[in-house]
């Protein structure tokens, strides 16, 4: 057992011996075993091509959209294998936010938030929908800014507001885990700061797993951090420990900018 891997009691996610390859020769994730702590922000860091986005997408089986993907190992969500759930049910419990804000362009702000329910054919009363929209937009600090424009399309919103709308859309299902793939890399510094503050607030209710190439961001907001290199999980520890006293020289090399 790798001594550089954090031990967590009652994790929300348990990743066991996960191996993912694109076809026969392209191994993206090699034998990763890790537990993710509930109500915490876990950052996945590493140089380009290290497998961090592949690992993230595997958590809600988004990686299966790629052709010729081969996966072995298991991921448990609250003790239940994600491979025994339907992807619809899984993705309600594990939401995802992508790098580029992607509100649905033909839908209004209101429709964007409630889109998951509508697209799945869920029959909700107007009052229920209103409550979900208001609650989700409040959670991301966007409600006051857009309450008079809920029926407008979201394209008048700034990049940061659009990303918050996407987060609200993910929150509408009250997921257990939110996956974020470099959620602020396309945003300006002020919007980035607002999203970071939002994540620190959201972790009180949700578990957040965040891929970032921005080490400072990982240091600022995450509770635990994973360092991946060439598909391998090299080190996984409390962020403070990893940044002040990394156990592995590769981690130290990456954090001090020697490579990556």
């Amino acid at each position: 057992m790798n001594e550089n891997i954090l031990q967590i009691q009652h994790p929300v996610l348990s990743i066991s011996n996960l191996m993912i390859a694109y076809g026969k020769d392209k191994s993206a994730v090699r034998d990763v075993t890790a537990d993710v702590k509930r109500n915490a922000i876990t950052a996945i860091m590493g140089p380009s091509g290290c497998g961090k986005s592949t690992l993230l997408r595997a958590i809600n089986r988004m990686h299966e959209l790629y052709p010729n993907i081969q996966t072995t190992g298991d991921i448990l969500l609250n003790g239940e294998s994600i491979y025994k759930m339907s992807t619809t049910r899984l993705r309600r419990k594990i939401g995802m936010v992508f790098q580029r804000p992607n509100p649905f362009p033909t839908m209004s702000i209101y429709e964007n938030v409630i889109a998951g329910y509508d697209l799945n054919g869920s029959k909700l009363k107007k009052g229920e929908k209103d409550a979900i929209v208001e609650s989700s937009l409040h959670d991301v600090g966007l409600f006051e800014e857009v309450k008079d424009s809920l029926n407008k399309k979201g394209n008048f919103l700034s990049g940061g507001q659009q990303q918050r709308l996407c987060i609200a859309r993910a929150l509408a299902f009250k997921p257990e885990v939110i996956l974020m793939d470099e959620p602020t890399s396309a945003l300006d510094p002020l919007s980035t700061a607002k999203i970071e503050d939002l994540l620190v607030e959201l972790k009180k209710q949700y578990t957040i797993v965040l891929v970032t190439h921005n080490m400072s961001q990982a240091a600022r907001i995450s509770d635990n951090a994973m360092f991946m290199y060439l598909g391998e999980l090299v080190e996984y520890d409390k962020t403070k420990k990893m940044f002040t006293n990394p156990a592995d020289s590769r981690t130290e090399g990456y954090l001090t900018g020697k490579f990556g």
Partner: protein
Amino acid sequence: MNIKKENAIHNIFDHFEDYANLILSQLSILEKVISSGSLVIPEEILKELNINEDKSDKFEVKLSEKIVDTIVLQKPVASDLRKLMACYQIVINLERIGDLVIDIVKFIPRIKESETYNRMSEVIYNMLLVSVNMVQKSLLSFINSDKEFAIWTIRNDEVVDDMNHKLIRKAIGKR
């Protein structure tokens, strides 16, 4: 500034003020001991000083760690970084002041010639008063960014030096 960074920096300066108050209370106890002129230190005063000294050592370790963690994790801007580094250096010196208080208190009962001590105790007491005042004002100058207090402290260093020279001349002259 993000919330976590803001809270981390606030937390450090709150703890710093608590530490500063602890050391000032140690100095205040020392003032009472010296002003009494007695070579016997009451047991309860020794106990209080030792308890505070333990707290002081723990404060120094905890604060130093917090400062390093904040610098590494939060990457404070230059102005905050300078303040944090100054805080770090002051914390180390506060811990030394705490140690010196205990050293002085331990030394007093070992003075054999009470007459000599009594003769010099006024100068010693005055030196202590000025030194304590300097510590107070230097801490206040840092906490409140008060330039006047900083200048006063620097100037009074010479006053304490003069008193020290006077004391040495008095001690040597007697022999």
